[in-house]
């Protein structure tokens, strides 16, 4: 038909202009990203050396090392995960397996959505008021982790809930029909078939924790020296220090050590890449099974 009745000039122009805009914007987004990543790596990677990532900063020798910040970040990730795994998975199980009142589920889901939307600076402020001051933890990595629990719990609830929903109803009915109790059924049938979703949730939460800065600035402290977390219980609770992101901020804003800041940025980008890739791989595995 189109051959018999050629498009009018106006329609042709409409088509061309919009097509051009589409390609232009997609190209712009990609160019931005490539420039961005390229710039960070070019400026940052040359400064990432073994001694940089395996030592502590020393004023006497005038060297800068980010080992304490790496360890602080690991601390934050591990402690936060210990809290959110049972809480988040439990909440998701409640929502998909136990809750029978739809309105109640809607309220919980609205609360989860709301938590996702709250800016991290507000989490940081409330975390500081409650964990650091009210509970007397001072600025400490533990207070930072507890704040991050609130930040990341929606992620893990959502991903777990989604994978629980994909477990076929017949599995549940079969288990219950064989006489299993509800908890027994969840433990032996539902959870094992949704483990991939839980892992994805954990990986995404790790990404959020590694990238978080505003929520940590006032809760976890800005120290740059090594903590001996395991020396005593007191040490474990009261160690404070800067995570990688906060260290980047401090080096760039307050100490004008831009090479160090770019090196940390490069490390953070590499971590983000690894986290994104692993989340994708786990997600793909989830689809196959």
């Amino acid at each position, binding site marked *: 038909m189109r051959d018999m009745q050629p498009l009018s000039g106006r329609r042709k122009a409409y088509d061309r202009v919009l097509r051009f805009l589409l390609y232009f914007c997609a190209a712009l987004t990609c160019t931005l990203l490539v420039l961005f990543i390229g710039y960070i790596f070019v400026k940052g990677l040359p400064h990432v050396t073994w001694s940089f990532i395996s030592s502590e900063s020393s004023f006497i020798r005038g060297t800068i090392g980010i080992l304490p910040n790496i360890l602080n970040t690991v601390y934050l990730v591990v402690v936060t995960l210990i809290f959110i795994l049972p809480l*988040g998975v439990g909440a998701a199980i409640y929502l998909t397996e*136990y809750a029978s009142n739809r309105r109640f589920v809607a309220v919980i889901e*609205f609360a989860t*959505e709301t938590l996702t939307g*709250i800016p991290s*600076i*507000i989490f940081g402020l409330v975390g500081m008021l409650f964990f650091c001051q009210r509970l007397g933890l001072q600025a400490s990595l533990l207070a930072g982790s507890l704040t991050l629990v609130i930040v990341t719990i929606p992620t893990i609830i959502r991903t777990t809930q989604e994978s629980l929903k994909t477990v076929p109803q017949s599995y549940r009915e079969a288990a219950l029909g064989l006489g299993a109790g509800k908890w027994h059924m969840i433990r032996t049938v539902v959870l094992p078939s949704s483990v991939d979703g839980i892992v994805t949730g954990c990986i995404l939460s790790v990404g959020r924790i590694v990238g978080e800065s505003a929520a940590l600035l006032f809760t976890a402290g800005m120290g740059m020296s090594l903590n001996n977390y395991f020396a005593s219980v007191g040490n474990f609770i009261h160690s404070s220090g800067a995570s990688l*992101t*906060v260290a980047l901020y401090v080096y760039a*804003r307050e100490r004008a050590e831009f090479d160090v800041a770019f090196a940390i940025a490069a490390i953070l980008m590499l971590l983000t890449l690894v986290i994104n890739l692993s989340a994708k791989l786990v997600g793909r595995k989830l689809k196959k099974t």
Partner: protein
Amino acid sequence: MKQKLRPLEVIMNVLFLLCGLVAIVFVLFISIYLILSGLPAIREIGLADFLFGREWASTAAEPKFGILPFILTSVYGTAGAILLGVPVGFLTAVFLAKIASPRLAGLVRPAVDLLAGIPSVVYGLIGMMVLVPTVRELFHLPDGASLFCAILVLAVMILPSIISVSETALKAVPREYEEASLALGATHIETVFRVSVPAASSGIAASIVLGIGRAIGEAMAIIMVAGNVANMPGLFQSVRFLTTAVASEMAYASGLQRQALYSIALVLFLFIMLINVILNTLLKRKKG
């Protein structure tokens, strides 16, 4: 025959219920805590003076706590970011959902995800080291750190959420709509913009609201590029946002000044809650 509930079952039921309540508890906890700590300063300063005062001089001998500059800066900054970011993000989403071959889209999509995962301090660092000096040279300013830089950084930061939410909405448009339009003789582009986009409009609107939420709540990236002086907003002025006002004085504030910072957080929180409610109604309408 009704099965008798074993004690273990009852315990687990209660435990899971408690976990389920966690999100509600957190939201209530944050709201109540912010309201309780935010109200005293507002009461002392006076609501009108606080919200519409044009001057913020928290450390002066006669301190002034007017946050109108912060509110306006946040609103202008967000509006600017939306103005720049939404067209680019929306058109990229259309490209990914309707134009690009699956292979090309498969290449671009992970890139967009990566953009979403980059920590905000990294955006701030790039803005501070590249954008701010460029703006200073280009417009012959004494200092490049300005609302303009913050808008550019925010525009890039909201791209990923706009792209991914709009793309999902566009992909959910039933194929029959598009096939009907094509069969009536519309070109592919006409179909996309006159059929698919209107059909996905509530999802696209949701992506914009989500972008507004992200832009208004961002702190660390813009604290590094906006200059941080409590001026009334101007495009090339050094400015302070609601978020950065909290972040920049919290470390040393005390007394009424500290309480006023909690009040700023409360105002920010109210903005965010309003946006959340709008987002929720938009998403619900999409489902219904």
